[in-house]
């Protein structure tokens, strides 16, 4: 990095006879140049021809690939936007779906709010596996998703977790004591689990006392980090984050918050309109949504600590 900057400054000083003038000034332009695009070596003709030759090969092989793909009309690739908290179960479900159906699934992970903005801007997702039930409904109402296609695939369970043993009791009494400096939760404005945490505190009548101790993370993954590193002694996270393959808590102490203390966290999936443009039929995407309700999928979903509608 330093060398790059020196390279720039030196080059600059060949333009300018003022050596002192080249000091602070060169940096800004080199910093900018360096972050946006690395300095290129002077174009050499040899390199140029080599590249275009390579490109020609790439183009022709792409043509072959396309011809080949036209032959197998049945194997579609489905682009799926998946809420980050559902990453692991979705990977397992998609792998099984690929095996049984022959379709390809391309999974993108992120926050439901970001996916909403991207879908509204025309992102080519065919299915949204959201972390809430509001976003899929809103997309349907706004015409970006197929009307009536949303359904609840999982019900999130909120837990109060500490990375330390014996901190969290099985009634959540710790919230009413003053034995902690920080309580971590996901931003309630953005994350359903954060909103459920606030609701729980209010239901317990502990909100006012705890409010000054709240630290907000961007999402539940970061909330988990705050608690796992011990910077916050306790925090509201998802049950799916703290249980292992065997269905037992991996480490620390946990209180599974009774569902009567907060509004159910319903996670919905929905079929999007975008994938349908260009004359492509939605059969593959519909098959994936159907598979999400299959016994296999529901076993995976349950093993990660999510509830489901009976």
């Amino acid at each position: 990095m330093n060398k790059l900057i020196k390279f720039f400054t030196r080059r600059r000083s060949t333009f300018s006879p003022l050596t002192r003038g080249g000091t602070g000034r060169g940096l800004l332009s080199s910093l900018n140049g360096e972050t946006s695009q690395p300095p290129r070596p002077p174009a050499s003709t040899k390199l140029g021809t080599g590249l275009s030759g390579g490109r020609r090969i790439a183009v022709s092989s792409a043509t072959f690939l396309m011809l080949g793909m036209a032959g197998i009309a049945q194997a579609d690739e489905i682009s799926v936007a998946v809420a980050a908290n559902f990453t692991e179960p979705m990977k397992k479900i998609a792998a099984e779906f690929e095996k049984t159906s022959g379709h390809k699934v391309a999974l993108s992970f992120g926050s439901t709010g970001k996916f909403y903005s991207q879908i509204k801007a025309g992102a080519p997702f065919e299915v949204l596996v959201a972390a809430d039930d509001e976003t899929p409904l809103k997309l349907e109402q706004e015409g970006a998703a197929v009307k009536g296609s949303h359904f609840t695939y999982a019900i999130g369970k909120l837990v109060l977790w500490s990375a330390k043993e014996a901190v969290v009791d099985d009634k959540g009494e710790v919230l009413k004591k003053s034995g902690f400096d920080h309580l971590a939760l996901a931003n309630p404005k953005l994350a359903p689990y954060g909103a459920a945490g606030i609701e729980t505190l209010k239901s317990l009548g502990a909100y006012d006392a705890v409010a000054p101790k709240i630290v907000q993370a961007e999402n539940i993954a970061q909330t988990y980090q705050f608690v796992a590193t011990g910077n916050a002694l306790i925090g509201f996270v998802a049950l799916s984050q703290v249980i292992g393959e065997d269905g037992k808590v991996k480490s620390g102490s946990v209180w599974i918050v009774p569902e009567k203390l907060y509004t159910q966290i319903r996670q919905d999936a929905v079929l999007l309109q975008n994938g349908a443009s260009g004359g492509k039929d939605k059969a593959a995407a519909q098959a994936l949504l159907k598979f999400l309700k299959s016994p296999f999928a529901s076993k995976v979903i349950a093993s990660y600590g999510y509830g489901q509608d009976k």
Partner: protein
Amino acid sequence: MFSLSPDDWSAIRLTLALAGLTTILLLLIGTPIAWWLARTASAWKRPVSAVVTLPMVLPPTVLGFYLLVLMGPEGPVGRLTQALGLGLLPFTFSGLVVASLFYSLPFAVQPLQQAFEAIGERPLEVAATLRASPLDTFFTVVLPLARPGFVTAAVMSFAHTIGEFGVVLMIGGNIPDRTRVLSVQIYDHVEALEFTQGHWLAGGLLVFSFCVLLVLYRFNPGQPGMRP
């Protein structure tokens, strides 16, 4: 029409305080480091340069995550601050200042180092023959000659800290009036689809950044002959 909430104003105040304090501290810390880097022939020069530049290369979330671990109750820095009776740094304003010092360090050290290197030995030797003490030389010869470097270092540190996001997100905890800075506030607005409020702040930041760079080029014009 103009709709900044009290929360927005609080975020702006906090951001300016953070950037201002960070800039002052960085000039104090960065000057000796840059001076040493510019003068030394030590074998440590390269490793130290690399460490100073590291925050520029690392993704801010990586930097933030390591700071969170280091400054946490189990981390070495966290143990030290606790032993000194300072408590833990994450989720505090002081914690943000410490993180910003790391984050913006290269933006202070590098312009200063280059300014010092460009002065060369001669002015220092001349000053020495006139019986100026090293300290005297530094304040009467080096500082005036390196002025463009100091302006660049100050402006870049300030502007870079204003735009800090990933690190703050990791160790700040988004607490109103304490760690919720401007970039986090904008992010929250946009994520919550409050685009109007987001636009006011983001637009303001855009204009501000443009003005900062304009001022920088005014003091340190890039082309010879444009010097005021």
